[in-house]
């Protein structure tokens, strides 16, 4: 299937166990290939909410000369496997296969673009696989996997409240069950104890992607506000000698809204950075 901007190729990439669903966006004919971008999607329901925005940005990247690979990680989206078998380390293996595939096809230099929990996983993965990656693009990164897991478990807590008026044992009780090795089902998503403990250990501040160019974008509801947690990590990374470009745009939190919404300012800012800032970055590396 070809869309009017360029080529879109759906295919399956084999990663044991099973196969991962991939979408490859290629630049339209006549636009020179500048490199590749690998997308890392968010966790659970945020992945679905953000699907439209991710596709819109992938198309824009392709228009400006990038090959973009969107892979559904094990147990997510249209990929094989079950979420209850997924682990962060397994997802990192998925990303490695995807990156090797991109580089093998000549779609380098390669950047990794992550959204929400996907941004945290991307940073973690790049810190161990960094040699082949040229830069990170972070959209509203989750600063702490621990907090993210708590918010996710709260869906179950809130469900109890809606059903009975009280929160039951809260996220703490659910965490105890996970720690004891149970697999829990929350809002239709099954998470196992390994995934939970790996999530708990991920903190953005701990994994500065050494030597990489980072383009970091945050969406705030009103102009002028900054997420304090993010600002702290950005400062830490810059202090550690990272080249972090931080940009705040105004818009709705499209990864969590009840209705599917777009955030045009984020698409514009990201596309502008990819066609301007990254050029300078590549030039300075040459």
């Amino acid at each position, binding site marked *: 299937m070809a869309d009017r901007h360029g080529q879109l190729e759906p295919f399956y990439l084999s990663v044991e166990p099973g196969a991962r669903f991939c979408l490859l966006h290629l630049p339209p004919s006549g636009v020179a290939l500048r490199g590749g971008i690998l997308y890392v999607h968010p966790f659970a329901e945020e992945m679905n909410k953000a699907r439209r925005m991710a596709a819109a940005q992938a198309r824009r990247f392709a228009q400006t000369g990038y090959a973009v690979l969107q892979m559904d990680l094990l147990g997510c989206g249209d990929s094989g496997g079950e979420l209850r078998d997924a682990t962060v380390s397994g997802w990192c293996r998925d990303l490695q296969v995807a990156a090797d595939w991109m580089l093998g096809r000549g779609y380098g230099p390669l950047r990794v673009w992550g959204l929400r929990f996907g941004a945290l996983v991307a940073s973690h993965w790049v810190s161990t696989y960094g040699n082949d990656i040229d830069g990170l693009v972070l959209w509203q990164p989750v600063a702490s996997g621990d907090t993210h897991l708590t918010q996710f478990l*709260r869906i179950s807590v*809130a469900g109890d*409240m*809606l059903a009975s*008026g*009280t929160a039951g044992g*809260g996220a703490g009780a659910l965490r105890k069950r996970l720690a004891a090795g149970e697999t829990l089902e929350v809002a239709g998503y099954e998470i196992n104890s390994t995934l939970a403990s790996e999530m708990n250990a991920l903190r953005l501040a701990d994994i500065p992607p050494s030597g990489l160019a980072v383009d970091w974008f945050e969406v705030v509801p009103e102009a002028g506000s900054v997420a304090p947690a993010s600002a702290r990590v950005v400062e830490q990374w810059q202090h550690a000698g990272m080249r972090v470009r931080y940009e705040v745009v105004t818009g709705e939190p499209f990864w*969590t809204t*009840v209705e599917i*919404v777009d955030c045009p300012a984020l698409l514009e800012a990201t596309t502008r950075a990819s066609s301007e800032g990254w050029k300078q970055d590549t030039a300075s590396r040459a």
Partner: protein
Amino acid sequence: MTLVIDDVRRIVATTLQLGARGGSMSSATPLLGAIPELDSMAVVSLITALEEQFEISVEDDEIGAETFETLGSLAAFVEQKMAN
């Protein structure tokens, strides 16, 4: 200076995307059971938005139906958290 209830009304309206319905909410407006958009995921989004906006931290045992009964009860909860 804006009142807490005005900020809470705005956060409820934007988080749940209530559009025009948001502006007409008073402190007596019922939330739980009265607004179909307020499902378990929306409750979590709402708590997260309130935590970020007011820089408060909500405990699990505070997630009770009485807190989310009306716009007024939710605003009172936020005010009490900010005072602590």
